[in-house]
């Protein structure tokens, strides 16, 4: 861009608004006669000026400001997204860590709760078998447990009279 163009383009807006002196106006017009670029620029400036003037000529009462605001709100979500909230939450160790410790403690309690796996009756696991009662006419009975399975072993001993005999 020529130095003259730079100088004129700085004055085009004022020229378009008729805010320049007669001398300056002549100066700009002489340049415009020979410079196509500056003429184009002036044309654009005039177009923009016309559009602004048209907009400003509207009556204020005709503009629905609340409708415009609703449109803006519907198109813009100012709340943070779920991912942003997760990131923000995870980034707060002071809040996050107690929850982690509490969860771990709850899991440990569940795992080590006595009789947790012992069925609905919450009974202590029974051995392979138990002897509830025993009677022998000899009057001598031994109750033991086998070595491996722990099953009950009832041994009927001979009576005192038989032993003597």
């Amino acid at each position, binding site marked *: 861009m020529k130095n003259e163009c730079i100088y004129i383009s700085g004055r085009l807006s004022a020229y378009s608004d008729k805010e320049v002196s007669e001398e300056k106006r002549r100066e700009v017009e002489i340049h415009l006669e020979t410079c196509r670029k500056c003429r184009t620029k002036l044309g654009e400036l005039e177009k923009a000026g016309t559009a602004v003037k048209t907009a400003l000529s509207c009556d204020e009462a005709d503009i629905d400001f609340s409708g415009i605001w609703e449109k803006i709100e519907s198109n813009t979500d100012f709340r943070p997204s779920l991912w942003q909230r997760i990131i923000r*939450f995870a980034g707060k160790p002071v*809040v996050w860590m*107690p*929850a982690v410790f*509490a*969860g771990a403690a*709850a899991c440990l*309690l*569940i795992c080590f*709760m006595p009789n*947790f796996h012992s*069925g*609905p*009756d919450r*009974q202590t696991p*029974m*051995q*392979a*078998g*138990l*002897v*509830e*009662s*025993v*009677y*022998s*006419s*000899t009057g001598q*009975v031994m109750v*033991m447990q*086998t*070595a*491996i*399975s722990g*099953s*009950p*072993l*009832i*041994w*009927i*001993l*001979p009576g005192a009279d038989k032993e003597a005999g």
Partner: protein
Amino acid sequence: MKPSLILAPLIILYIWLVFIKPAEAGTTSILHVNIEIIKACRDSAVVDPQLKGLIRELGPILNFSGFSLLKKNKISLKVNDKTRLILSPDRQVEVKLLELDDYKARLSVRILEKKKETFKTVLLLIDNGSALIGGPPHEGGTLLLRIKVKFE
């Protein structure tokens, strides 16, 4: 997010797991009883191949060296059902199922000699549990009963 939002579901889960009963399983109604009548002796070292496990079980307790399986009976019982088996010409054993639930079976075992009760016991057995009763003399050895149960 507050920690209480995480803790609340965890506490609810804990309470549910610990205090609320799971759905009842199908109830057991039949007990399969396997009764082995065994002769144990000290003057023989012959062990019936089916009774090899028994040597390991009884070895540390009783000093028998020979075991022979005289009879093996499989019976199925419902509550209050009873069955009698002949141990020897003048000796019988009677087994009666007194109670049965998903976790235990209560069995009454009686030994009758010449129709007179000489021995009686009540056993509490779990599924696949077993009990041994021994002592009565029998043909130069000692009689041993092994009772195994299985729930259905």
